């Protein structure tokens, strides 16, 4: 683990009780990046973000600067949509950023709008996050009154409204095209890409940049300190710092901002300053490295750095920065079912392989867990998985519009690969139980 002084970029105000207020924000360098930026050409601001090599923090890890550049030239208006619909199981960071430092996010939004030329911004917060909505509403009201948002920002001709909007309970809306549908007042069902890449055809079919809350929260620091200073932190393709939530069977679960690309899973799970090791000093059985959609990792992966490409190559993903730790007492079938059940419940129903497939997977796993599993069930599970994600490989292929369906395949592929014996044991048990039950059907009569 790096022992050099790594700045806290996005959580720097978290220790203050009043971190969500304008007074605290201004007293700690707030809105200085905005002042600096409007003294620069928008293209120069854009270049700083590109130089930072900031990867999107929502899940896919697409470089923010590249994403911004995908908007077709000279097509106006452009919109900015902030994805604050954090709901990937295990993920807990955007809510903290919205509740505890809403002005940092708002300043990030303004910097993005200035650089890209967005005429209006929509800040979409997950419906269930009442406090985040409250703190953002209050922050926006204060920022409008202080002249940071709205018409003629800081007395210049830069004008943009930032509209707080919110959802109503649907995981799928975290997918950017589904979020746009939701923002248009529709059911949150993903659009087909191509042609509906938001940067080209997004909100109201206009070029739209959809960025995650954590991604945008990095921008004030990047503009204040320069893209190069940001890129100097981290490693390989993973620059800067990043927030990770470590949950499950660790002694001290928590959300930590660490240097990206350098810190390892072992550091996060075992170091006393982070996860503190496995509860009761148990052995680790498995861990999910990047939210429920990610294939599981095991003990041999602990020394991998939290670096995008390295983790991708090892067969999983850092996704949304959610590390869920399972100790040796964990029932693999039960854990697998719980994750699959989530995807079955949250499937939007648009694509048949996902709508039907995830439900089948849930039902089959449930009956295995309940002791009614059949010997053919494991092959059936894999067959259904293969229908949703042909080849059951990583990175996953899909027969669906969005990656939700294939996400339900990840935990099954992982658990079956590693803990097949637990599935077998439950089915064998079921077989034995069944034999002991008196057969209700009359035996075939053999006539002489």
């Amino acid at each position, binding site marked *: 683990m790096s022992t050099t002084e790594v700045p806290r970029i996005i959580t720097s105000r978290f220790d203050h009780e009043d971190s969500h207020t304008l007074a605290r924000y201004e007293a700690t360098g707030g809105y200085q990046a905005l002042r600096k930026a409007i003294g620069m050409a928008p293209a120069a601001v854009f270049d700083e973000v590109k130089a930072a090599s900031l990867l999107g923090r929502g899940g896919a890890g697409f470089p923010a600067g590249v994403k911004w550049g995908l908007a077709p030239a000279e097509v106006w208006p452009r919109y900015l949509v902030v994805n604050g619909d954090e709901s990937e199981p295990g993920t807990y960071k955007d809510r903290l950023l919205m509740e505890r430092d809403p002005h940092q996010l708002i300043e990030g939004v303004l910097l993005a709008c200035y650089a890209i030329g967005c005429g*209006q911004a929509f800040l979409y917060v997950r*419906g269930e996050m009442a*406090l985040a909505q409250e703190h953002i509403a209050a922050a926006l009201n204060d920022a409008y009154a202080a002249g940071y948002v709205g*018409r003629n920002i800081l007395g210049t001709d830069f004008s943009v409204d930032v509209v707080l*909007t919110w959802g109503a309970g649907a995981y799928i809306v975290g997918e950017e095209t589904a979020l746009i549908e939701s923002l248009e007042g529709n059911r949150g069902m993903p659009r087909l890409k191509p042609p509906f890449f938001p940067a080209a055809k997004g909100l109201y079919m206009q070029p739209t940049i959809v960025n995650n809350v954590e991604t945008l929260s990095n921008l004030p620091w990047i503009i204040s300190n320069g893209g190069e200073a940001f890129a100097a932190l981290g490693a390989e393709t993973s620059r800067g710092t990043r927030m990770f939530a*470590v949950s499950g069977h660790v002694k001290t679960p928590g959300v930590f901002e660490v240097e990206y690309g350098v810190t390892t899973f072992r550091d996060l799970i075992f170091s006393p300053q982070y996860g503190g090791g496995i509860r009761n000093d148990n052995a680790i059985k498995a861990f999910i490295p990047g939210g429920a959609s990610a294939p599981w990792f095991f003990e041999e992966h602990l020394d991998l750095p939290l670096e995008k490409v390295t983790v991708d190559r090892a067969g999983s993903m850092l996704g949304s920065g959610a590390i869920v730790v399972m100790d040796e007492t964990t029932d693999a079938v039960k854990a697998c079912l719980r994750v699959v059940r989530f995807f079955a419940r949250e499937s939007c129903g648009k694509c048949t392989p996902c709508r039907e497939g995830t439900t089948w997977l849930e039902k089959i796993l449930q009956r295995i867990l309940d002791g009614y599993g059949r010997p053919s069930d494991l092959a059936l599970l894999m067959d259904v998985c293969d229908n949703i994600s042909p080849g059951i490989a990583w990175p996953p292929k899909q027969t669906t519009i969005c990656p939700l369906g294939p996400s339900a395949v990840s935990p099954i592929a992982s658990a079956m690969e590693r803990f097949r014996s637990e599935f077998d044991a439950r089915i064998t048990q079921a077989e034995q139980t069944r034999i002991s039950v008196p057969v209700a059907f009359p035996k075939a009569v053999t006539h002489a």
Partner: protein
Amino acid sequence: MARLTAENTELALEIIARYPRPKSALIPLLHLAQEQDGHVTDAAMSQIAELVGVSAAEVLGTASFYEMFKFEPVGRYMVNICTNISCQLMGGEELLEHAESTLGIRPGQTTEDGLFTLEDVECIAACTEAPCLQVNYRYFHKISNPQFDQLVADLRSGARNDIPPHGTLAKVRQRIPADRRAGVVTPEDTAHPVWLASSQEAQS
């Protein structure tokens, strides 16, 4: 059957005016209706349809997709217990079972006194604080069985009146003062953003 009050209708119009297309205000308006009545009534949906210029069926079509909207009366307090993976590992399912026996209801049901509705919910982003729950979308972290019973007792006795009735989310609303408003940008506003143009001129 409750339409929006005059005051809420006023607020609805203010919200609609922030969006380039009125239908984009649908979800916030449905929340407003739910805040007023505790659930979303047919009358409110019909009125919202008129306000944003779509059919009532389209409003229901959108509303019924989202889990937070309730179309029948629910308890004053919606108790949502997370049982997703991080919470499951730390006892979320056991907490749900305990809540069922304390409240005497199963998930999806409401107590006879109309105070509590219980739901088992998916991840609510408090994974490091498992097991966790929300009451009317206010968080309670690392909840033990005795703490749950105390919470229920406090809600029954009125000791926790800081939690507003079901339907109310943020207690602060965004308000854009007329003199600070940059204005809605519709897809028809195809002009080059002024600040891009002026900085290009400055550069050249």
